[in-house]
């Protein structure tokens, strides 16, 4: 008896007990459906995060800091833990450090990280955001190479800025053009003024920064007793809007990029308070003429580790979000394992269903097994006939289960995007079905159903033909 004969025989037998076969298969369908949708949720989350890292260039970016940065200590929120970070030697980051970093093999670009809070004013509308200084050379990389509207600045000393689409929205402007129509905007757009991108590009914008005002600090004793407000003063600088950037991924962080991007030299010239980035606040004061953070971008993702090691040899501290991804991935592994375990439980229950069905089937077909043995069926062949039957249930269940899992995740995704997503957010794909998941699920289902068929098949093969032929 060849394998194809056994498969034909298995289908024949399963067809005869349609209801029972369908119910048993349904068990596997639900098991595989649960497993795949759970795991696809895990992989979907992981992919979304990884994509966000990629879109934000976090794999090629690293930050050279004057002090070691330990996110775990920051996240702990314990003052003692955080204070630990500020002990130890401080490496001074100056323009010569920037030049030295640019000379490191594998480094594409290096520049001091300067960002500070500003008020932005267009016409009479005002909002608060973060200004980030970028060299014009960053215009060759995503997403700066092609801003959604307009272009990136080309001169480090130009009075030009690239502004985030969302900041303009905060300024009550709904910017659109033919390619990005205002009508396509999700969420509530009431109270916003729809404008053509062309009318914003080239438009002057006021960037308002805050400086210490020594005059207000004079007569300090009296001022301290009856404070007339903080001892600061606002300074306004005028820029031209040359480009508008719109978020492409729901996970890309505006705060990471800054709501408004200004050329490096022009940004440095903006008067401001004595700290240049958030790391300054964490690291305490740094000496004048020094930076607390230098942004380094490597040429290739694969170079990141080796470049990092080269920089660390220079006695500098390097912080990279890619390192954090490793931690995040470890976290996902746990989530995946839990989700997978829940799905596996469903599949194991289904496997018990298969075993039960097969045992029932053998009890019913004892005489038939006896007859098959009497006409020359070997133990191996009879074992295989039942084995193949279990496998057929497994394969059918896996294929339909995948379909179910896919359908359920599509539906869930739709519901999440329609009902749960905050207004104005771009639709996201929560689930991901990579090819390894599809093939793995089929393979796992076959494996589990074969395991479930093992005992019944063995039992069928060892039936005593003389007894079986007497069986009713």
């Amino acid at each position, binding site marked *: 008896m060849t394998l194809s004969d056994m498969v034909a025989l298995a289908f024949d037998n399963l067809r005869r007990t349609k209801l029972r076969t369908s119910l048993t298969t349904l068990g596997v369908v639900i098991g595989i459906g649960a497993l795949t949708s759970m795991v696809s949720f895990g992989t979907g989350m992981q992919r979304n995060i990884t994509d966000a890292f990629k879109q934000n260039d976090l794999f090629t970016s690293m930050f050279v800091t004057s002090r070691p940065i330990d996110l775990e200590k920051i996240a702990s929120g314990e003052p003692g833990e955080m204070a630990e970070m500020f002990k130890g030697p401080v490496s001074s980051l100056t323009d010569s450090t920037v030049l030295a970093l640019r000379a490191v093999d594998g480094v594409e670009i290096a520049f001091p990280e300067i960002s500070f809070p500003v008020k932005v004013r267009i016409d009479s509308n005002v909002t608060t955001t973060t200004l980030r200084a970028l060299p014009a050379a960053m215009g060759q990389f995503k997403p700066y190479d092609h801003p959604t509207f307009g272009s990136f600045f080309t001169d480090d000393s130009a009075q030009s800025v690239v502004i985030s689409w969302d900041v303009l929205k905060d300024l009550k402007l709904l910017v659109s053009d033919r390619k990005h129509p205002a009508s396509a905007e999700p969420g509530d757009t009431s109270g916003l003024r729809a404008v053509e991108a062309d009318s914003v590009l080239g438009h002057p914008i006021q960037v308002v920064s805050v400086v210490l005002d020594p005059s207000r600090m004079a007569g300090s004793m009296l001022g301290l007793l009856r404070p007339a407000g903080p001892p600061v003063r606002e300074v306004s600088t005028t820029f031209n809007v040359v480009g508008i950037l719109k978020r492409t991924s729901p996970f890309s962080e505006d705060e990471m990029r800054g709501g408004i991007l200004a050329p490096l030299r022009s940004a440095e010239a903006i008067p401001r308070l004595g700290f240049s980035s958030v790391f300054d606040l964490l690291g305490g004061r740094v000496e004048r003429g020094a930076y607390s953070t230098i942004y380094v971008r490597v040429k290739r993702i694969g170079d990141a580790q080796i470049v990092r090691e080269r920089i660390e040899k220079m006695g500098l501290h390097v912080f990279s979000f890619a390192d954090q991804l490793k931690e995040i991935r470890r976290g996902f592994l746990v989530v995946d394992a839990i989700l997978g375990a829940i799905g596996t439980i469903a599949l194991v229950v289904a496997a018990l269903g298969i075993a039960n069905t097969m045992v029932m089937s053998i009890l019913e077909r004892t005489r038939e097994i006896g007859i098959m043995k*009497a006409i020359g069926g070997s133990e191996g062949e009879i074992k295989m006939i039942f084995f193949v039957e279990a496998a057929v249930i497994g394969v059918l269940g896996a294929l339909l289960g995948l379909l179910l899992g896919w359908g359920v995740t599509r539906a869930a995704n739709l519901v999440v995007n329609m009902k749960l997503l905050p207004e104005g957010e771009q639709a996201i794909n929560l689930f991901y079905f990579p090819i390894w998941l599809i093939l793995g699920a089929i393979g796992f289902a076959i494996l589990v159903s074969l395991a479930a068929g093992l005992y019944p098949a063995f039992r069928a093969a060892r039936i005593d033909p003389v007894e079986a032929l007497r069986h009713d």
Partner: protein
Amino acid sequence: MQLVEIRDVSKFYERGKLKVKALEGVSFDVAQGDFVSIVGRSGSGKSTLLNLVGGLDRATSGCIAFAGKDLTEMSRSELALHRRFSVGMVFQSFNLIPHRTALENVILALTFGRVPRRERKAKAESLLSLVGLEHRMDHKPAELSGGEAQRVAIARALANGPVALLLDEPTGNLDSTTSQEIMGIIERLNSESGITVLMVTHEQDIARTFSDRIVHLKDGRVTEGAPA
């Protein structure tokens, strides 16, 4: 030449703690082409003996040689091959698979016999024609008369070209006319094709009419008919 040589065969069953004797010290031979009947009352051990020759069961002691090979020393898979190719068994209760048609029942035996798929149907049809059942091939056992069902069983037993037919009360469930028809087919197979027949029956008349030799069994022992 002896096809079957049975030497001092005993068979005991364990029924709980009780040891039940089915056969004790049975010895006789069956020559190639012979038609031998084993006659005895119910419980005399004749079906047990037939099952031992058919390789469905194993003797507790003694040896049974079939075409020179000792069945008692064969592995389980060798016994399966013996049942498949060397002997064809026919039972009182026909033992057809109820959800398969006459043709499919014969085809199943051919499938075990590794007959190529495309040849199976034609071969099964010719086997069923041989037993005069060409008009009932697509009927299931429940739709066949006892005689017809037993013809299917004979066709199935012949599927893989056995040297011997082992018949266990083949007419036990049939009326006398049908019994005669069935026995006619078996006699023809024996005389024309030279197939060896070993038949178990309690009907002395049938045994006397059709067989060359009769072996009498009583309480698991041969009382008459064994070679001197």
